[in-house]
């Protein structure tokens, strides 16, 4: 279909030129500076709201979301530490059976 092929060629030229132009614009400090400020402000506002919610929950004697996240994270860390110890124990057992090191 000739009409489609010609249109497609024009589209490709337009798309390339537009993408190049947009890339320059998206890299511009004039855009990045204010966008970063807005993002940071939005994040600070969200953190503040979360903080207020936590204080309300704490005031009622309830565990906060952060408390639960910290506890779960510590449990995960403990799981990793147990695995570290298992590995060390296996290494020591292997060394002992090979007689590589004196077993004390």
């Amino acid at each position: 279909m000739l009409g489609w092929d010609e249109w497609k060629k024009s589209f490709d030229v337009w798309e390339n030129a537009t993408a190049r132009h947009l890339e320059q614009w998206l890299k511009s400090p004039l855009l990045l500076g204010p966008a970063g400020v807005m993002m940071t402000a939005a994040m600070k506002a969200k953190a503040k709201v979360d903080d207020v919610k936590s204080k309300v929950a704490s005031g009622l004697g309830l565990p906060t979301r952060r408390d639960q996240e910290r506890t779960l994270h510590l449990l995960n860390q403990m799981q990793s530490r147990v695995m570290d110890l298992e590995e060390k124990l296996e290494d020591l057992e292997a060394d002992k059976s090979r007689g590589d090191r004196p077993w004390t």
Partner: protein
Amino acid sequence: MIGRLMNLAGLLTRRKPAVGATPADVVHAENKWKLLRFRPRAAGLAHATPILLVPSLINRWYVLDLMPGKSFVEFLVSRGHDVYVIDHGTPGDEDRYLGFDDIVDGYLGRALRVAAKTSTGDPRAKVHVLGYCMGGTMAAIHAAAHPERFASLVAVAAPIRFDSGGDDGLLAAWSRSPTVELDAVVAGVGNMPWELMQSTFLLLRPTMQLSKAVHLMDRAGKAWDDEFLDGFLALETWGNDNVSFPGAAWRRYIRELYREDRLFRGTFALNGRPAQLSSIVAPTLAVTFEHDAIVPKAMASVLVEQVGATDKEHVHLPGGHVGAMVSRSASRGLWPKIAEFWEQRPGGVRRERETEVVRRAVPSAAARESGSRARKKR
């Protein structure tokens, strides 16, 4: 035109192809991540050194095993390699506290030891490591801190020098924007949400989605075959299946790598241990792609200049960040190149008895657990 539209409408009801279909067993599980070992080919393993694939932390691992015929993993298994891959999993809210050291030193180190032990019986045996994209950065950092564990390092489209002084691409420009306060972002969202990261990737070429639609329309009137459609849908499935970045790890990644370029400058440390690229002495291969908008050549090719290895190589190929790794042409060019790199190195010697390891039972995560319970009883 009606034919094109009918073909496009058919896409809506077309069944999605199976992704990540090469048979594998979970040999280790910890927090959200798993280590998968692909079942060796029926003829048995042909190579002595196992291979560990490290995908990016923010994309699913199955880009390396996209679909039958377009799978790097399937290709390696068919050549008799013992292949492992890290599935980073999906971080939970509590993983906002998970640090870069936990992942790159702790988890990656464990993956290397489990792969070595499962394959050879010795957790201290060396392993070939391939990192793709950010996985390559992670692998290079681990290799710099623990060079003794690596039989070789292959970094595919992996950012190493984050500030080349020239054009490092949009992603680098955004990450270095000083008005974004990293602590405020992590305090606000915890983990860096995948939706935000995906929007960022789409903005790398804002006309991409439109261009893709027109390309699809064009294709709908020409070569509209099953192979193309399955490949397209598999890649779209993967592209829309992203993972959030654990908050503390994201903050350090952006601050110390994108903003301070510590890996390249030799001032990065992993759990207090210096991670200097000059410490890497294992054979090293860096792969870059001509049209890679995410990791330009200058960011990735410096690996071979920085490592201390004398056996090192840089390969620059046509294609984009993802397409060049999963396309049909990759199976004829890039994949054999990587496999030959391993097979020609000392660790790539053939096994004397090809089926030796296949007969040995694969220790599963459940077996590890039962072993741990048995020890506790003693």
